[in-house]
């Protein structure tokens, strides 16, 4: 593939695709100083290494990328070379417009056909993985190449095709990431990671889809594995964590019961109260009364 760069605003291929900021291939045959400084990323950028070896700073540290590797940079993350040097080698890249909502959800515009739930799950996985380096994934390079071809040839249906390819890239990388992060031989480790993610965001309305995706498993196998490992279904295990956290908060008189309900992920104080009572025999109010002390 030859070197090229399409830029939003100046390349007419991108006129129908306002969400694509840049698409290109860089082939660099000699070291260039000050050509690759660290910048704060706006939007989401994908890099696919074709050739050479790159020392890049991604988000919070220095990493080495080899041919076949993908680096994905999310909005607000720092990216570039610590020495600002562009090393010898080649890579393709795709830069698209996307924002972070509430620091935990990637917002893609209407062009994407991913559903709301799917985007939530993908965002969770991408944001929890650090760094976002996916190794040995030639398929990603092929997709970026296809996007370029569609844009150049403009055959019938290319508008839909280009956008589908970008969705496909998100799906491919997310799936590969969960597999890479969760080698099948160690479910204990996978489960501890999941447990940690649940605890860090216990207020979130977790779905089984999201949890299964984080564990890098399909829903059916995930349910089965969690049940045999913990004795509980994934959602019931989650209830254990929610109620344990709620108990700690109930023992602190200054937090209101409604706040506790929402902070621990129940969708209403009624839902909290029913679940709590079913498990402990006490309503949250009664439990608090039994465990409150006048100093």
């Amino acid at each position: 593939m030859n070197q090229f760069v399409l830029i939003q605003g100046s390349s007419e291929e991108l006129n129908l695709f306002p969400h694509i900021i840049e698409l290109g291939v860089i082939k660099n045959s000699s070291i260039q100083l000050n050509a690759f400084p660290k910048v704060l990323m706006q939007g989401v950028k994908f890099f696919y290494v074709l050739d050479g070896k790159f020392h890049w700073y991604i988000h919070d540290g220095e990493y080495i990328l080899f041919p076949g590797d993908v680096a994905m940079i999310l909005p607000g993350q720092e990216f570039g070379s610590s020495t600002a040097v562009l090393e010898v080698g080649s890579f393709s890249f795709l830069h698209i417009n996307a924002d972070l909502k509430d620091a935990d959800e990637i917002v893609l515009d209407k062009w994407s056909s991913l559903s709301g739930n799917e985007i939530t799950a993908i965002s969770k996985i991408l944001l929890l993985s650090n760094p976002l380096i996916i190794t040995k994934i030639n398929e990603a390079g092929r997709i970026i190449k296809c996007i370029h071809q569609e844009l150049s040839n403009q055959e019938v249906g290319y508008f839909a095709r280009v956008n589908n390819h970008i969705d496909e890239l998100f799906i491919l990388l997310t799936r590969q990431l969960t597999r890479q992060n969760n080698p099948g031989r160690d479910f204990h480790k996978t489960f501890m990671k999941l447990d940690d993610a649940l605890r860090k965001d216990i207020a979130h309305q977790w779905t089984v889809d999201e949890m299964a995706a984080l564990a890098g498993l399909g829903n059916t196998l995930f349910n089965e594995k969690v049940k045999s490992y913990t004795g509980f279904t994934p959602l019931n295990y989650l209830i254990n964590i929610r109620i344990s956290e709620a108990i700690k908060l109930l023992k602190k008189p200054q937090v209101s019961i409604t706040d506790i309900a929402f902070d621990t992920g129940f969708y209403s104080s009624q839902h909290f109260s029913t679940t709590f009572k079913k498990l402990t025999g006490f309503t949250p109010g009664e439990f608090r009364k039994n465990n409150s002390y006048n100093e």
Partner: protein
Amino acid sequence: MKCIITIELGTNAVRIFAFGLNGIAIGSMKGYYPTFHTQPDYSEQDPEQIFITMLYVLKNLMNEIIHPKKYKVASVCFSSSMHSTLAVDKHGVPLGNAYTWADNRAKKEAIEIKGSSIADAMYSSTGTPLHPMSPMLKIAWMKNNDQEKFLQAGKFLSIKSYVIHQLTGEYMIDYSLACASGILNIHKVTWEQEALNFAGITTDKLPQLVPVFATAGTLKKAYQNSLGLSADTKILIGSSDGCLATLGAGIWNSDKATITIEDSSAVRVVGNKILHDEKKRIFNYLITENCFVSGGPSNSGGGTFEWFAKQFGDFATAYDLESCMNSLLQEATKVSIGSGGLLFLPYLLGERAPIWNPDARGMFFGINIKHEREHFIRATIEGILYEIYSVGKMLAEHRNISALSVNGSFATIPFCTQMIADMFNKQVYVTKNSNSVSSGAFLLAATEMGIFKSLDEAAGQIEIADSYSPGENHHHTYIKYFEIFESLSNKLGDEFAKIAELQEKNQ
């Protein structure tokens, strides 16, 4: 129909069993809770999650098994893993997480007391080796490193005492679990002043000491209602997992020893005398008057083999870890005794008995050009069991052991059981009930109800499912390798310390 429920608050999970009064299990359920390792040497669990998980599992068992079959629960008997330490404020509210048995943060305190003039006296009064696992040292650690928590603490509890306090409002601990705290004087059965001094506490900071048969108060009304248990359901304090696994293995006042190998392992004997070991390597837990469980715990076991399987197992064809371990075991059988002279020291997690060296590390020794993959597999298993043999050998210095009873998921793998018989050159029995802790808790509760006259008689009820005889001359072959294993374990002290230090620095 009456039944007995046993609740085991284990290392990773709570296991609840229901038994008919005839000792046949009606049903069982488990619930997992996580262990947090926020720093090297730290190993913590959330007491609230343990409590809620226990409650949830118990409720499910009641609703799915006990109530539909119209059983009436006569008593609920508790057991738990040893050495857990939890500080609660004066109202019983936890001050953070509990430290588990595997928490080694009190290393310095252990070194300090081991080198002090009171070390010998402490071991003979408490009967417990001086090791960071001991709650006495964990409390001392809090005193030295977390003053705020230490001063705010109204009580220092075990996980079991905390769970029971939630259920009944009583602060209690049984003798056997109290022994594991390193604070109990096992001769006088009172808290030992010297240990209290070292921990920096007074007796009012500890729960009330009671016998293993004691009733730990009455279940709170709300729990009676939500679980469907009547007010006269006895809540029995019970004992520790180690003591009950021994009872459940049918070993009581005999010249047999029991070997438990799960993730980690232990070898234990029961008798009417405390085993006083000059080198302070043997623990002694008081069960009932003049009845002691003595032995040594090892950090290696099934967990060590699992580590090997994860790193070197073939996952291309294996569906999961279990099937991978099974195919490794298959491969191991292709190699003859002694693994062609390849030795493995299983000290991946440091070691307790018999070398009591937290810095010990694992190694393969004697590798030559002919060794293949299956030699390493077999050597790993042999190494784990040589370590068990060395714990047994330590006990044999004090007590004649004529036969063995094994339990636990690793020890009961036929290949391993046979290897144990060969190494020890003794008859090995496998009991019928696979979960010996629960069986032990049932026997304790049944004895309390008067179904058996004594624990002795109760232990006699345990049925043997299988028996393994040592192969001719196998012991002889193993022992030659074991001698090298043993001398390496003792010789490498300096190198262990140096490598452990480097590993800690480079974490």
